[in-house]
């Protein structure tokens, strides 16, 4: 066991997978000697050399497009896209090729690829360095979308993503990269993609969230006198619908919390699934606490945009008193 933050847990997972499997290589902007702008790949260039930790030209579509070729040839590339807002230039390669290759070739060609992307706001970054685009990729058939909220989960989920036979977008909530440490086993372990985690159990209401927002949910729940269950989805697609159903049938009330914009966000999908699966169990309408249907503000106002404990508590109270 080691006491690690989220960055260190990811770094450890990368080291262990690279040692275990010669097919694994890292590529991206500044991932080499610099160790990544968030230092997630720190030390890997020195340890594994320029052949396996590759600084590429500054071109996101190129990074993902060449990764697709590497993966089609049987390697396990892990490209890094430096910030959420720069996924856009790679959208075509991700959605027109990585996501479709297995289907369009009936399994003859596959793209086992893990795209690492720091995601979300809260670090006083410039424009396009704070977005939460997970819904866009969750909506694209053929992609898996993962977002851990703890060092332990980050390591186990990343190892699963690397070993997954299909493309996975691994969103790393940069706000909590170094927020806290926890015990992370040195031995390798996996956390299955598609399985949620019950962070704390409760009977009166279910809060569902993912990524950095999970910490704001915990803060809100700690302040509440009621018995509240918190589910961290961990995987945004495919979503653990059974876990949601079981919890909401037990509590009858639900609040969904995410940083991404509201309209068509994954909170809407959670609410729709609850309607279909738990309609007659519901004691209150599902509440959403989300970012807004606006451009993510520059950092002076970013905390007004992101769900915080006060807004979450408001939604919890509204659902409980409905």
């Amino acid at each position, binding site marked *: 066991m080691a006491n690690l933050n989220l960055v260190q847990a990811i770094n450890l997972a990368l080291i262990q997978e690279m040692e275990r499997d010669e097919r694994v290589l890292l590529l991206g902007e500044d991932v080499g000697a610099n160790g990544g702008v968030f230092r997630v790949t720190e030390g890997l260039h020195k340890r594994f050399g320029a052949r396996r930790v590759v600084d590429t030209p500054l071109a996101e*579509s*190129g990074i993902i*497009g060449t990764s697709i070729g590497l993966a089609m040839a049987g390697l396990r590339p892990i490209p890094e896209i430096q910030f959420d807002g720069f996924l856009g230039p790679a959208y075509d*390669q991700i959605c027109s*090729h990585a996501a479709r290759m297995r289907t369009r*070739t*009936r399994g003859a*060609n596959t793209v086992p690829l893990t795209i690492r992307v720091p995601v979300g706001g809260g670090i006083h970054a410039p424009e396009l360095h704070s977005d939460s685009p997970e819904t866009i990729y969750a909506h694209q058939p053929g992609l898996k979308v993962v977002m851990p909220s703890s060092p332990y989960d980050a390591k186990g989920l990343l190892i699963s993503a690397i070993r997954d036979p299909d493309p996975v977008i691994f969103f790393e909530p940069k706000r909590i990269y170094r927020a806290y440490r926890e015990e992370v086993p040195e031995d390798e372990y996996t956390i299955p993609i598609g399985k949620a985690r019950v962070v704390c159990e409760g009977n009166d209401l279910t809060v569902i969230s993912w990524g950095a927002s999970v910490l704001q949910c915990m803060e809100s729940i700690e302040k509440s006198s009621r018995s509240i269950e918190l589910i961290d989805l961990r995987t945004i697609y495919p979503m653990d619908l059974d876990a949601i159903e079981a919890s909401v049938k037990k509590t009858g009330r639900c609040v969904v919390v995410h940083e991404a914009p509201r309209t068509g966000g994954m909170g809407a999908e959670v609410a729709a699934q609850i309607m279909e699966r738990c309609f*007659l169990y519901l004691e209150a309408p599902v509440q959403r606490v989300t970012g807004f249907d606006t451009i993510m503000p520059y950092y002076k106002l970013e905390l007004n945009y992101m769900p915080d404990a006060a807004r979450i508590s408001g939604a919890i109270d509204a659902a409980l008193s409905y």
Partner: protein
Amino acid sequence: MPKTSILKLEIERISILDEHGNFDEKLGAGLIPDDDLVKLYEAMSSCRYLDEVAFKLQRSGRMGTYPQNMGQEATSLAAAYVLNNDDWLVTCYRENCGLFWRGVPMESILLHWMGDERGNAMPRAHFATPIAVPIGTQMLHAAGLAWASKYRGEKQIACTFFGDGATSEGDFHEAANFAANLELPVVFCCQNNFWAISVPGKIQCSAPTVAQRGIAYGMPVMQVDGNDLFACAYAVKLAAARARDESRPTFIEMVTYRLGDHTTADDARRYRDQAEVDVWKERDPLLRTRILLERKKLWDSSKQEAMRARIEAEVTAAVARAEEIVAPAVSDVFNYTFAELSPDLEHQRDTMQTHSLASEFPAATKGH
């Protein structure tokens, strides 16, 4: 400081067998043995006949939109001919002739344009990537495939095909830049066929050659007569050796012409003059190859007739095989989305033709 010239550029243009059948012995000697030349001519003829048949199949409702290859057969065929069989062939959708030479069955291509993904399930033995519809995107895959070979210390290279229009796409520039800077064994073959649907080449590139785009990325370039099987073979052979031995990319502009419409959904008469097409019909790669074969006493009209009969039988049989393949199981809409389907996807698959809330979620009807 006085002004000085810091860069002077020169681009070689290769022509070996011209449209009149003149043959340059100096460059062309020994490049393609006579026996092979006959086979290559037959391959081009067969591909051309498939185009005729495919056009009729589309017009009679037996096939969806189809892009004819007519006039461009020599480019991809020459590449497939000189490359090793395990070199990656990363094409777009006008390279049937090269794919057939590689061993991809004719019915696979037919099946693809008949709306069946199984046509794209290229067995690994062909080292051919699936037909790429989004323009220019596949060049990056070629760079990645070549990179994988280099990573493993193997000698396999990747050869990718795209049109003049594709060189306007950002992905072309990223692929060229990655391949040059990361020293990847890629051969970039641009089929400059003058037309991207209705948009002429001058709107894609105002430089006098497309080839010089490669120079900007620091790679050797060549321009070849793309309707000249020998010139294409010469260039790809040289580029493949450079890729294999030095792990460096090359850009080859193959100047050819799309004799047909963009696809069966297009009517080129709307935007280009017949006079231009007529000039290029004289430059047809099949015509000049036949002239050479006849001059070498390797071909005559009786052989032509016999070949035509063989080809007709071959294509007819391929069409029959493609049409005999029954539609995929409806569940196949789902079954290849992931290696393993999530419970929700399985549920969608199993209920795709019905929608009954009560039977789907019995628990939802029971309140508390």
